């Protein structure tokens, strides 16, 4: 495409099919303890 470059596809939608195992890290345990962010966590199944 001339005008648009796609940085990322529909990964969120795709993750609905296999997600929810609950084994991933609790976000507040990683480095924050004050400001919750979840998108910077890792998926346990992709480790």
């Amino acid at each position, binding site marked *: 495409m001339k*005008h648009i470059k796609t940085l990322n596809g529909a990964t969120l939608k795709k993750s*609905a099919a296999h997600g929810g195992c609950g084994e991933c890290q609790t976000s507040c345990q990683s480095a924050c303890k004050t400001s919750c962010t*979840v998108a910077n966590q890792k998926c346990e199944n992709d480790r």
Partner: protein
Amino acid sequence: MVHTFQALGVNIAVDVNSGAVHVLDELTYHLLEQVEPPMAEHCPAEIAARLPQYAPESLEEAWQELRGLAEEGLLFEEDDYIDREKAASMQQQALVKALCLHVSHDCNLRCKYCFAGTGDFGTGHRMTMDFETAKKAIDFVVEKSGKRRNIEVDFFGGEPLMAMDTVKKTVEYARSIEKEHGKCFRFTITTNGVLLNDENIAYINREMSNAVLSLDGRKEVNDDLRPTVNGKGSYDVIVPKFQKLIAGRGTKDYYLRGTFTRFHKDFAEDVKALAAIGRNVSVEPVVGKREDPYALQEEDLPELKAEYERLAEYLKDHPETNFFHFNVDLAQGPCVIKRLRGCGAGCEYVAITPEGDIYPCHQFVGNEAYKLGSVQDGTFNAELSHRFAALNIYTREECAHCWARFYCSGGCSASNLLVNGNIERPHKVGCELERKRLECAIALRALAAGLGGEETSAKA
């Protein structure tokens, strides 16, 4: 829902529900701002008329590219693929799998912004956790975690190194029972570093999968906000110890973690100061009530947002520094189910005090209205826990309309309570800063991928 923004000279469109992210040239950026789905077959004349600076044929060309994305499910996607009832029921069945273990309600620093009342959580009673209580906490999480294999225990305080004996015995006990219960414990520690020595540095580097090292950045900032009990600066005592710990860390995680407050809003300088000590850095906004002198206020937002931009500009040229809150893994981050429910405080994640009392998280400790139970007598208020489990980005009204909902996942209940008196109502300052961080993080990803240079920012 599509969110468009400009950051670091890059024009970006986030398709909120699909997770797709696109880098646009300037023409397409302005065109997309005018588009309401469903898109017509051709660029409507009234839209072209609103953008007279661009040639109609160029607008039509960009229009067709946008249409193509929509047809592929990469633009204007709905969130109807999420089964909200199923997701909510999964959350209601959430099991406790992470502990913030307050092994010490005592501290050897007197940080001016401490949410823990400089260690005693406002109780006036300083104490450390005995091993018997810690053992009960481990037994509690083993039982409550059901079939979940991975269990996290963060040694927290106060200052956990003041209870190092309990830390070691707890790790030894958990390791001794994990196999028989089919569990995998991951230990982390959050320390101010004052009591680090060769022995406990070696221990932490062997046993802790992550070490969070508290330091506020520049020496003058740190010493202003993190004095010792005697009122002296702590920087010169701590930094050599942290350097030693980091040098022996190997491939294990660590973060140098600072807090920024209203007293020092130029926190990008603190990130740089920490990055000179170690590459993994987290510097975060303070949590406080509106009336606290250090608390960040709405009128500070323009300055704080500009500071995040300044930090992003710096990090653009310093990829060796890993800034925690600009980490966003667009392709392989958490699944959408995880993103509905956020931190899990009160259900998946709880804090346990030296006395054995259970609270939804470390920030709730001492707030009796939110006490969940005790590991001493086995009580656990399932009704209160379910109240937390019921929270998600669709039940928090303001989140349901926010473009960042799948990245932040609903924010911090404790912060909401502190500022708004309600765990469900998001804290405006926190939300605005979160959105700004995400914009910077996504723009940095685009630049790192080689997108967003002249090719996409030039006028068509």
